[in-house]
C-alpha cells in the first residue's frame, strides 16, 4: 500500500517535472498566440488577467499586419531569398558532399574537418568584411546581398550533412553502373542522386529554415523596410518611435515561427546527426 503510494508520488513528480519543462519551453509561444488575438484594450490594462481573454478575441492584429504594414512584402522577400539560397546551395553542396565522401585517406578527412570548422566562424566576425564586399558590389540595402551571403554558411553545413549521407551509399553501385557503360558523371546522376533524394530534401528544408532564422547579416546589410526579410521586419519595423505594436509584433512572430518549428521538428534527428555525426563518428 505504502509502496503503491510512493510509486504514484514518483509518477506525479515525474509528470510535474515534465509539465514544468514544457511550460518553460513553450510559454513564450503561448504568449505570442494570446497577445496576437487580444484586442488592444484588453492587452493594455494592467488589472486584466493576462493569461486569458478578458474581452472577445480578435483578428484585428493580423488584419492590420497584412493591410497596413509591409508584412506581406517581408514574407515574399523571405521566400525569394530562401528559394535562391536553396538553389545555390544545392548546386554547390551536392557535388561537394559527394566528392568529400569519396575522397579517401587523410586529405578527405582534413577537408571534412576544415568544413566542420567553418561552422564555427561566427557571423559577428564576418559581417564587417562582408559588408565591405556587399557595398563594393553595390548591393547594400538590397535583399540580394543576403542571397549572396547566406550560402557562405549554408554550403558548408549542407556539404557536411550530405557527405555523411553519401558515405553510406556503397561505391559498388557506381562501379557497377560504370561497368555497364555509364560515365562516372552519369553514374552519379543516374544512381547516386535518386538514392539520395531524402538527404537532398533534408538539405533543402534546412537551408530554407536557416535563411529564415538568420538575423545578424540581415540586420547589418539591410535598412530599407521594403527589402527586409520577415525576421528582421517583425523584430525592428513594427516599432514606431517608442511605441511597440505588440499585438502585431506577436502575430508576425507567430506566423514566421510556425513553419520553421514544424520543419525542424520533423527533421530534428537528422539535424543532430549532421552536427554531431562526422565529429564523433
Amino acid at each position, binding site marked *: 500500500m505504502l509502496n503503491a503510494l510512493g510509486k504514484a508520488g514518483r509518477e506525479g513528480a*515525474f*509528470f510535474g*517535472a*515534465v509539465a514544468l*519543462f*514544457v511550460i*518553460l*519551453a*513553450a510559454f*513564450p*509561444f503561448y*504568449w*505570442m498566440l494570446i*497577445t496576437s488575438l487580444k484586442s488592444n484594450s484588453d492587452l493594455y490594462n494592467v488589472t486584466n488577467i493576462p*493569461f486569458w481573454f478578458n474581452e472577445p478575441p480578435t483578428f484585428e492584429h493580423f488584419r492590420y499586419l497584412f493591410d497596413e504594414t509591409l508584412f506581406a512584402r517581408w514574407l515574399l522577400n523571405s521566400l525569394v531569398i530562401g528559394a535562391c539560397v536553396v538553389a545555390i546551395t544545392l548546386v*554547390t553542396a551536392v*557535388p*561537394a558532399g559527394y566528392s568529400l565522401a569519396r575522397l579517401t585517406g587523410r586529405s578527405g578527412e582534413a*577537408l571534412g574537418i576544415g*568544413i566542420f*570548422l567553418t*561552422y*564555427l*566562424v*561566427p557571423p*559577428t*566576425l*564576418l*559581417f*564587417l*568584411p562582408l*559588408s*565591405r*564586399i556587399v557595398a563594393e558590389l553595390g548591393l547594400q540595402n538590397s535583399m540580394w546581398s543576403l542571397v549572396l551571403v547566406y*550560402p*557562405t554558411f549554408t*554550403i*558548408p553545413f549542407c*556539404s557536411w550533412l550530405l557527405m555523411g549521407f553519401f558515405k553510406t551509399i556503397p561505391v559498388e553501385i557506381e562501379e557497377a553502373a560504370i561497368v555497364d557503360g555509364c560515365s562516372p558523371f552519369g553514374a552519379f546522376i543516374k544512381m547516386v542522386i535518386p538514392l539520395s533524394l531524402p538527404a537532398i530534401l533534408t538539405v533543402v528544408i534546412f537551408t530554407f*529554415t536557416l535563411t529564415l*532564422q538568420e*538575423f*545578424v547579416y540581415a*540586420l*547589418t546589410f539591410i535598412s530599407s523596410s521594403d527589402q527586409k526579410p520577415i*525576421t528582421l521586419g*517583425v*523584430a525592428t519595423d513594427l516599432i514606431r518611435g517608442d511605441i*511597440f505594436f505588440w499585438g502585431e*509584433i506577436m502575430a508576425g*512572430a507567430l506566423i514566421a*515561427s510556425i513553419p*520553421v*518549428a514544424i520543419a525542424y*521538428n520533423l527533421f*530534428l534527428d537528422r539535424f*543532430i546527426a549532421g*552536427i554531431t555525426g562526422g*565529429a*564523433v563518428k
Partner: protein
Amino acid sequence: MGVPFLLAVYYSVSAYTIYDQSWRFVGLANFAQVVRNPVFLETLGNTFLFTFGSQFLGLILGKFGAFLLLRPFPGRGLVRALIVLPWVVPIALATVAWQWMFDSLYSVINWTMIALGIISRSEAPNWLGNPHLAMVCVIVVNAWRFFPFAIVIFLAGITAIPQDVIDAATVDGAGFWRRNYQIILPMILPIMTIGLIFGVVFTFTDLSVVFLLTNGGPVNATSVLGFEGFQVGIVSGDVSHGAAISLFMLPVLFFVVIGMLRFIRRREI
C-alpha cells in the same frame, strides 16, 4: 570538385584580407585604443559572464530535461516537439516575445508575482531597466534558447550507449549516481563537448538577443563583443575599430575550438 568549399574559403579569406588592410593602415593603434576604453573592458567581462552563465544554466536544464525524456511515456513525442521549440524557432522572434514578457508595465512575470502576493505593484522590478536584472534577463533568455539543444545532445549521447554496458554496471553493483557519473558521463563526454563547442561559440559571438532585448543597455550593462562590434562598425561606421573589437573574439574561439578538438582526439585513442 571543391568549388563550393573554395567559395566558402574564398569568402572567409577575402574577409580576412579586409581586416588585414585596415590593420596595415593603422597598425595596432586600433587595438590599443579599444583596450584603453573602459566600456570595452566592461563589454569583454559581460561577454564572458553572458557566455558561461547561460551555458552553465543551459547545461543544467539540459541534463534534467534529458533525464526526463529518457523514459518512455505517453505523449513523449509531443513533449519533445514542444521542448525543442526555443531552439528551432528564429531566435530574433522568440527574443521579441521575451521582451514583451519583460515589459516594464505589462510584464506577465510581474503580474504573476503580484497576483501570488510575492511583491507589490510599486516594487515590481523593471527587468530590462536595471543593469543587474537586464544581465540576468539576457542570460536567462539565452539559456532558454540553448537548453533544448543541450537536451537533444544529451539524449543522442545517452541513447548511443549500449544498454548492456549499463546493465553490466548495474549487475556489478553500481548505484544510480555511480552509473551516472562513472559510466554515462564519461561515455557521452565527446558528444557533450561538441554540443558545448557550439553553445560557447554561438553564445560568445551572438548579438541578436542583446540587440533586441536590451540594446546593450542600460548604460552598456549588457553590451557584448558582437554587439559592440556591430555598434561601432556598422551603426557608427567606424569599420576599423569595429573590426578590432570583433577580432577580440578570435583568440578565445581559437583556444576553445583547439582545446576541445584535442580533447576529443585524446578520448578517441
